[in-house]
């Protein structure tokens, strides 16, 4: 049995070696992507461009403007002199929001009346719009327009564990490894069986003494190894270039990483047994992993804020489990006692998919 698997694996290695450009792309592209997206994916808004229309030109409006200018969050892009100009700028997307001071703004504050203040917000980007609105409200209401004593009754003493400086890259970069590995693994294996069908070599396989399960395992093994190398490379890049901390055990991560790769490769394998051509297999593999592992994995978008049904679906997304594993080991430094449920989930996932693939493959085999 071992020898059958090994023969199969050797045959697959010959295939891999015959296409050195694929191998070059396989190692090069992920590194370029790691370099680009660690900083590109940034959730904290900064320097949001806003406009100001000041019809007041007195100390109170200047005080608010000064506060807006002083915050990291906003950048005053321009001072406008008419409502039409403001409207036009928002329409063209030059600014995301505008503050309009009425002519009697300072006057009313001096008289201890509460003046109106118009805020215009571009809501077309719902997520950003919401944050911009909250930010503007905060600046406007916390600006001091007179002396105000504030009694300190109790204080909050925040402590941030695992990532004390709350660096975004520490959160994003391990996630990138998980997400990219998933897609790479799928592209790698999705062609293996489809290629045999397309080029007509399935018949030869059928004549060989190897059993379907052996063929499948023999095909998966070399790619597991290859994907493991790519993963290691990405991890090293994360440690050296982004200086992401590594608190936990490297051996544990390696071991659990293999479980994840098996799950990821089994998706490609399944696509390969379903599809008749490489094109369909790869497209199906990518389609099935690209958006789910970016969106439904907790990579960036908080799963808890999603509708229930999507939260349930997220339980069959392998990337979700590996994200918890890689962030847990790298940032929290936790051990297997906190991660065993994730590993079990990954292994069950891989086993089920490999089983289905084998059954499907055996059926195609017999014809």
């Amino acid at each position, binding site marked *: 049995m071992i020898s059958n698997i090994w023969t199969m694996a050797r045959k697959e290695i010959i295939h891999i070696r015959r296409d050195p450009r694929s191998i070059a792309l396989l190692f090069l592209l992920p590194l370029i992507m790691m370099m680009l997206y660690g900083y*590109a994916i940034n959730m904290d808004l900064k320097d949001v461009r806003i406009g100001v229309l000041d019809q007041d030109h007195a100390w109170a409006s200047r005080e608010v403007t000064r506060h807006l200018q002083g915050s990291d969050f906003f950048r005053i892009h321009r001072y406008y002199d008419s409502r039409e100009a403001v409207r036009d700028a928002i329409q063209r997307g030059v600014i995301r929001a505008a503050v309009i001071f009425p002519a009697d703004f300072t006057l009313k504050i001096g008289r201890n009346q509460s003046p*109106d203040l118009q805020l215009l917000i571009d809501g077309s980007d719902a997520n950003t719009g919401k944050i911009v609105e909250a930010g503007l409200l905060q600046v406007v209401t916390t600006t001091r327009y007179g002396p105000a004593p504030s009694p300190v009754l109790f204080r909050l003493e925040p402590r941030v564990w695992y990532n004390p400086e709350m660096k975004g890259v520490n959160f994003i970069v391990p996630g990138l490894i998980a997400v990219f590995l998933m897609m790479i693994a799928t592209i790698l294996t999705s062609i293996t069986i489809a290629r045999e069908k397309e080029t007509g070599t399935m018949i030869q396989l059928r004549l060989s003494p190897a059993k379907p399960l052996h063929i499948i395992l023999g095909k998966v093994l070399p790619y597991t190894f290859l994907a493991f190398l790519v993963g290691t490379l990405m991890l090293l890049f994360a440690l050296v270039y982004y200086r992401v901390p590594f608190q936990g055990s490297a051996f544990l991560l390696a071991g659990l990483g293999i479980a994840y790769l098996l799950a990821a490769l089994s998706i490609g394998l399944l696509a390969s047994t379903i599809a008749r051509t490489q094109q369909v297999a790869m497209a199906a593999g990518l389609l099935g992993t690209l958006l789910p592992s970016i969106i439904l994995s907790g990579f960036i*978008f908080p799963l808890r804020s999603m509708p229930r049904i999507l939260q349930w679906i997220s339980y069959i997304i392998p990337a979700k489990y590996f994200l918890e594993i890689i962030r847990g080991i790298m940032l929290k430094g936790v051990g297997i006692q906190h991660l065993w449920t994730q590993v079990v989930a990954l292994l069950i996932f891989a086993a089920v998919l490999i089983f289905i693939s084998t059954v499907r493959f055996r059926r195609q085999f017999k014809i």
Partner: protein
Amino acid sequence: MKARLLPLIKKEFIQIFRTKPMLGFIFVAPVIQTLLMGYAVTTEVTRLPTIICDEEHSRYSRELIQILRQTEYFDVVELTSEYPRVRWALDEGTAAVGIIVPPDLTRQLRTGLSPAIQVVLDGSNSNTAMVALGYLQRIAAGYARQLGVEYTNDFVTYRTASPPVTPTPAPRVWYNPNFVNAYFMVPAIIGLILAFSTMILTAISIVREREVGTLEQLMVSPLKSYQIMLGKIIPFALLGFVEISIVLVLGKFYFQIPMRGSFALLFFVSLLMLLTTLGLGLFVSTVTQTQQQSMFMAWFILIFTILMSGFFFPIENMPSWLQRLSYLDPLRYYIFCLRGIFLKGAGIRDLLPQIGALALYGVGIISFASLRFQKRMK
């Protein structure tokens, strides 16, 4: 010329529709993707699992828990009186926030010592941690104010000036007053689907013909090389338009997204985008030899177009070198146009720079790629 091109297009369609999964990609995938995007992509942080460590069980901690429970931001998953439980819960990931109430809170409050309530945040998700801290500070300030009023009448005395006036802000949200997520995501998904299906499928289908050797058969036919190219491109362009229509119908009737601009303009910019994605697909096919190579290249370009386009995250957040790089992303211009046309009713005048850039990109890449393609054919 038409007489030669038509059979070629027909052949391509036969090839596309011969495989059943392909029908799935073209007709079902856009629907699923649109639904997924419409509902799932939210950066809002809600229902944060929170563990509260409280030994005293005083009135104050009860009130604080009550307030936390009333907001949608926090979800109190565990009440404990043992500090190590907090560590365990955060390590395990069952809680993202820990609030530790000091054991002598009441005494400290009454003696005016201004006690510290410790807040522990799981920084491994830096985004959530930051937002959670903001929420907590706001809630704490509110609670302090509430207590402060009471305390003035009670045992702590301090001077109060007349409360300062603050302006009454009147926020007006344009285009999407209720901040509906789908309004923003669904127009963008059109761009994503175009990039996905037209670019990847074109690239692979050409490389496949080369790999299998049928491209050579086409070359020895009386067809000119540009005809072969058009025969490869036109079917996918048509499919692209079918997919746009599917998403449009879904967006309009299911998500009820307002369409404030002109359909003509929408189709015009979509045509430009199609030129770009087809051009990219063609380009990928000229620099790769096997289907797997072209898949890797197409994947790389696809991720670039998605992540650098402002699709999920505003481009302003990126460091400046990446912002400059994002000008290379055709999806950036296309999504800007789509969102503008849909939600703002933007016209050609508002979108001129974007449309210009997209046109330049589309025409440029398709001519460059077809030159390369024709050279390789010879």
